[in-house]
């Protein structure tokens, strides 16, 4: 297969590079490639391959379910938003709240700093 030939070609190039390593100017990219191979010897040699591309198709972490996702979001929000102080309107425990008691949907999203 053509891809196998490619691998063997780069293998030969790599060995050539080792001998020519003094002349880095000739191909800086090749010496960078050699560096990468030295660091990660088991690295898949096919950045154009379907595995690589399929990773690009799916970005972001996969969550177990929506509950997992919402928990993760809540954790992030706690870290990011400025603490507004205890909400005095919040009704808990005393009695069953009526619609009038519940606070309106908080705009939990802050205005962009570009507009500030």
């Amino acid at each position, binding site marked *: 297969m053509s891809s196998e030939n490619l691998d063997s070609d780069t293998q030969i190039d790599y060995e050539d590079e080792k001998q020519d390593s003094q002349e880095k100017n000739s191909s800086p990219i090749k010496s960078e490639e050699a560096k990468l191979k030295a660091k990660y010897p088991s690295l898949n040699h096919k*950045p154009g391959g*379907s595995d690589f*591309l399929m990773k690009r198709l799916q970005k*972001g972490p*996969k969550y177990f379910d929506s509950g997992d996702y919402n928990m993760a979001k809540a954790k992030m929000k706690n870290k*990011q938003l400025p603490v507004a102080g205890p909400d005095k309107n919040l009704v808990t425990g005393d009695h069953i709240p009526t619609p009038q008691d519940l606070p309106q949907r908080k705009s939990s999203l802050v205005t*962009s*700093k570009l*507009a500030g």
Partner: protein
Amino acid sequence: MAGGGSEDMQWCFSQVKGAIDDDVAEADIISTVEFNHSGELLATGDRGGRVVIFQQEVENKSVPEYRSEYNVYSTFQSHEPEFDYLKSLEIEEKINKIRWLPQKNASQFLLSTNDKTIKLWKISERDKRPEGYNLKEEDGRYINPGNVTSLRVPVFRPMDLMVEASPRRVFSNAHTYHINSISVNSDHETYLSADDLRVNLWNLEINDRSFNIVDIKPANMEDLTEIITAAEFHPNHCHTLVYSSSKGSIRLCDMRASALCDQHTKLFEEPEDPSNRSFFSEIISSISDVKFSHSGRYLMTRDYLTVKIWDLNMENRPIETYQVHEYLRNKMCSLYENDCLFDKFECCWNGNDSVVMTGSYNNFFRMFDRAQRRDATLEASREHNLPLQLLKPRRVCTGGGGGCSKRKKDEISVDSLDFNKKILHTAWHPNDNIIAVATINNLYIFQDKVSDPDSADDLSASDMMCTI
């Protein structure tokens, strides 16, 4: 081209928007910048799903030195985060692209998109309101009809300008993969949206239906070799569109040829020099942006290291290639490790297609004057923020043999570059030399240096448009 002077590119600082502090929240990262067709409005989108629109200050438009003053006009939450229950994946609210519609009436319209959903927003002004209702007080309380003894006709009275943004259409559920581009057709009726494997055609009025016009998904995903990275409609020919790929090729399609444009009409591809092939070749040849020139004659593509200009009449190689940051060839290994090698830089044309611009690292951005064969490296930095302060050209020296022997103030060595400070998004005013450059969380506005009218280099107003 204008005459006079040394014709050096000269740019001045105008404004910077955004917070100064270094602690940047993810939501504040700017993800797109776009001028509208007149240049009067400038829109930005961020990772938090918000859109901020700036408007050129009317009073200052006639004063050359201050014509690039832009102030906040409207801001709204365009997209919110969602959860794809079927795949258990988050759908980010990040605004990938904003595209303005040409203005048809008093309101402005723009399309904004995240990974999955495109929205048409109407931005309208309200500067008067009705007063003098019979059944309602001014504060909204209702009047008992029994107390009304006479009737009056409500009248419109002027009020403080209010700018409202309302979503007019939501175009959803048409993309399995992540939307990377939207482009309004020159017919002003349709637009395209492109994801990694498909391009869809929409009618702006119809949101429950779209036509698939390009589909490069292989029957077996193991055979996947390339994905779509950007797509755009031709500025004048409503039947022509282009899309770029992760392999560095651009395909031009003619919608008149067939309903499904899987067969390209033209394929723009530069043959690769086999001696240059390396592990990194495919990654750095992936095209991150494609833009037609305003004339429609040329195509500009951006890959990791270069900007290329293609003539639509010549498919086998670009007519111009500009090196953006060639010195990064020596850093490929670390750029791969820190994922910078996958950064998607955009590029843009100036109004008359004579200069192109793109971003780089360390908050540098690059300009290439096609006619003059000159290029410049400028920096968007808070250190040079005096009004109308001239930007000094910067230089990156590659240490070792050929470079920063005497460390000058405007020179910086490759090893000192800050790869977290990247300029991915830039925009050029359609008719003027005003540019908007987005760093990670700040928006810089620059304008070209206005000549002193009393000096010997007396340029007329029309000459000013051509000078860079």
